[in-house]
């Protein structure tokens, strides 16, 4: 029996985050915690995901820090201008965890590297999300 990985998706209702969430939600053995300041859009996305992937473990959360604390892997899909703010919010609870940073260019973010020195930061382009698989020891792309 393999234990479920918990993934927090921060920025789940952003266009990139939404696309990533829709692609990843069907992954077996993964539990998703979705975060967004737009609670109406988040409720709607969660509803759609439950309808599309019955049985999938998907939960909307309001506290980014708590969700990141619970998570094994953090998927960061917020706009660049918000990266620093989010990083400061979660830095204490993501030590040793994989933070997957999705952006259009696929270029590593200096801001994130600096703000989260003890996390494992992976930067991916949105189209690279499809190839992700989640193993007991972490994530494989």
């Amino acid at each position, binding site marked *: *029996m*393999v*234990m479920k990985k918990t993934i927090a998706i921060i920025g789940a209702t952003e266009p990139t985050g939404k696309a990533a969430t829709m692609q990843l939600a069907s992954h077996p053995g993964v539990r998703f915690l979705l975060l967004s300041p737009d609670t109406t859009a988040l409720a709607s996305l969660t509803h759609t995901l439950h309808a599309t992937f019955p049985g999938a473990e998907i939960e909307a959360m309001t506290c980014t820090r*708590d969700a990141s*604390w*619970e998570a*094994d892997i953090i998927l960061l899909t917020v706009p660049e201008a918000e990266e620093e703010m989010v990083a400061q919010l979660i830095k*204490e*609870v*993501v*030590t*040793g*965890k994989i933070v997957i940073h999705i952006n259009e260019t696929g270029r590593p973010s200096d801001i994130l590297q600096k703000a989260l020195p*003890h996390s494992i930061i992976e930067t991916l382009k949105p189209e690279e999300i499809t190839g992700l698989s989640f193993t*007991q*020891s972490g994530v494989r792309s």
Partner: protein
Amino acid sequence: MFEVLLGNINKKISLTEKEQELVKTFFIPKKLRRKQFLLQEGEVCQYTAFVEKGLLRSYNVDEKGHEHVLQFAVEDWWIADLYSFLTGEPSGYNIDALEDTELLLINGSSYEAMMEAVPKMERYFRILTQNSLVATQRRLSGNISLTAEENYKQLIAGNNTILQRVPQHMIASFLGIAPETLSRVRRQMTGK
């Protein structure tokens, strides 16, 4: 988040501020909700866990589906399947949260890296290992030679908080007796 761990470490060894900050960087903070698993039978135990807040148990399940509790871990305690952690073999145990729990996890490579970065931690873990060996020996000896009542008394003397937080059938399982036997022992003790 690290108050209980650093308190535990500083009871056994003395770390400077700088060493404490360094030690923190090797641990993964993890929250578990009640009933969630830290480890499930059949997978490799990748972490040893320190309990900052909450309560967990390790147990196995026999062929008849009966659960056998090996250990409870409350605040200030460590828990893992050390055999699986050290050998990389799949675990025969489950570890789950009996309450919402906050943990600090450390994996094998971080464990080694921490010893190298802060050599004083070798002494800390040596003391932990000694304490754990003594506790294991006492538990084994209790199972072999003590009565159910004596084992229960030993448990009460060791950690009263567990008795208040854990269902009686799990306490009975930990002691290796039937729940009915535990009820009888408790009745006899209150009657004395």
